[in-house]
């Protein structure tokens, strides 16, 4: 029985290893290929680079405009995350601290947004954004991203604010602190861990969004990085600048993986908490 369980232990270990390799291999391969020359890539997809072609990265960054797309993404995503947090925190705080006629209904209006598939709203959303003159603008995307993230954020932050003790807030009100003072000086600082987890969660979601920019942001100058890369891959076809494309791919993969590795505990916890509730 002992040796049997040891064999089983070895077998389980090797299964775990195989899947790990299958996940890592394509990623590593893309990173390695981004340092190769086109000829190297075509000769053998498996070999290590003979020389390290760092210039692939500058070519992708400048000539294929990945750099520009990258900054577009940074602007839209940071704007979207900040605005989403601001709007959601305000709503969540009100819903958690105050009871007023219709407050329950309001909560369901916000949380209900999680149930509907995005595709249902796609056509009208396009025209809403167009009628506001915000098509092909970063501001339009920021507003759509921020409001689109509100359902989940309000849901999450309301629970978070409710869990905070009310004593501190009441004491401050008795001492003559205004409601705004309580919010900004006491409640928001207390809610920082919640804001950070929801912020990371929204960052990943917005950074990876593809459908919305595809529909609302069709001007090449304003492309986001997912969109830009997919566009290069589709329009250039396979054979024009393979190594440059790999470099672009690496540029778009590594920052996200870095953010993930830095915050992996919160991210896994936050993402799975969303599924469990």
């Amino acid at each position, binding site marked *: 029985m002992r040796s049997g*369980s040891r064999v*089983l*232990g070895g077998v389980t*270990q090797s*299964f775990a290893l195989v*899947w*790990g390799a299958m*996940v890592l291999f394509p*990623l590593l391969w*893309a990173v390695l290929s981004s340092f190769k020359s086109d000829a190297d890539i*075509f000769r*053998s*997809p498996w070999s290590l680079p003979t020389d390290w072609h760092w210039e692939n990265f500058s070519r992708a960054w400048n000539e294929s405009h990945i750099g520009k797309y990258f900054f577009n993404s940074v602007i839209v995503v940071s704007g979207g995350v900040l605005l989403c947090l601001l*709007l*959601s925190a*305000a*709503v969540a*705080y009100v819903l958690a601290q105050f009871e007023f006629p219709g407050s329950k209904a*309001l909560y369901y209006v916000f949380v209900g*947004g999680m149930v509907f*598939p995005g*595709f*249902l*709203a*796609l*056509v*009208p*959303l*396009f025209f*809403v*954004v167009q009628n506001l003159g915000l098509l092909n603008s970063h501001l339009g995307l920021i*507003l759509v991203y*921020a409001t689109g993230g*509100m*359902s989940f954020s309000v849901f999450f932050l309301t629970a978070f604010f409710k869990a905070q003790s009310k004593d501190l807030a009441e004491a401050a*009100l008795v001492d003559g602190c*205004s*409601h705004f003072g309580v919010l900004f000086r006491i409640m928001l600082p207390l809610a920082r861990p919640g804001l950070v987890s929801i912020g990371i969660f929204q960052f990943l979601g917005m950074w*990876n*969004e*593809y459908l919305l920019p*595809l*529909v609302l942001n069709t001007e090449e100058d304003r492309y986001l990085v*997912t969109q830009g*890369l*997919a566009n290069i*891959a*589709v329009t250039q076809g*396979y054979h024009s600048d393979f190594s440059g494309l*790999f470099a672009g*791919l690496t540029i778009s993969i590594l920052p*996200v*993986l870095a*953010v*993930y*590795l830095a915050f*992996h505990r919160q991210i*896994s916890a936050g*993402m799975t908490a969303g*599924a469990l509730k």
Partner: protein
Amino acid sequence: MHHGKYRFVIGLLLIPLGLYAVFVVSPYLQAFPIAFTDWEGLSATYSYIGFDNFVRLFHDSVFWVALRHNLFLLLCLPTIIVTMSLFFSAILNYRGGVRGAKFYKVVYFFPSVLSIAIVGVLWQFVFEPRSGLLNGFLRAVGLDGLAKLWLGDGDTALGSVMAVVVWGSVGFYVVLFTAAMAAIPKELYEAALLDGAGSVQAFFRLTLPLIWPTVQVAIAFLVIGALDQFALIKVLSIGPGGPDDATQVISLYMYTNAFTYGKFGYASAIGVTLFALNMILTILTFRLTRRERVVY
């Protein structure tokens, strides 16, 4: 102090509620009326045509092909992904955790943080017939005969796309399931082992029933996800949706109708149908996977 409170509440709610109403609530509400119009192209005028769009949809062969692919994905993806994820979670949790379990969980989760579009571009290279990773691997181990066009062949295109979805999803559910397993009290396992249960038995008799609510959520997620497949197919498949509609799905067909052909009324009808399917399948999933909830 009390009217101060109301001023404060209104002040805080006004802007968020306004923006949410404009960008979230109003598009969802408008989707339904648009589905009953003949709105096309750039014309600003349109008229209501009752259920005509839905009747046309019913006779649209591409829609049925797309629906069939969605249903195929809907049966295969949850089954494969949940089975694999349970398997790897059980492995990582084996005897209180295999060596390096934490490291594996971090690595498995990698694809979940990548954009689906980026994953699509990456796998386009993997499937590339001449110098892609997959055919390169097959030739390297002497299985030249298995090297295929993958995405270019109608017989393998949908399967190839599905493999990428599996690759990208398993890690997320492994993390989800291991978190649920970690919440099971250790004493229960000790008692089971004392009673002479093997690891496999303990998994099916103890672990699985105890984490079933989580599995149920996972299945519901994946069922809805199977209906929502878009980005990967848009980036990965030829056409997209091809070759010859071999990878056509409802959401892609809706997108193409709306933003390539400008048939906004028709596309909205597809959207409403998708929404109805979504609701039915969610309810059905929870019904079919319902079990006595085990309390510990």
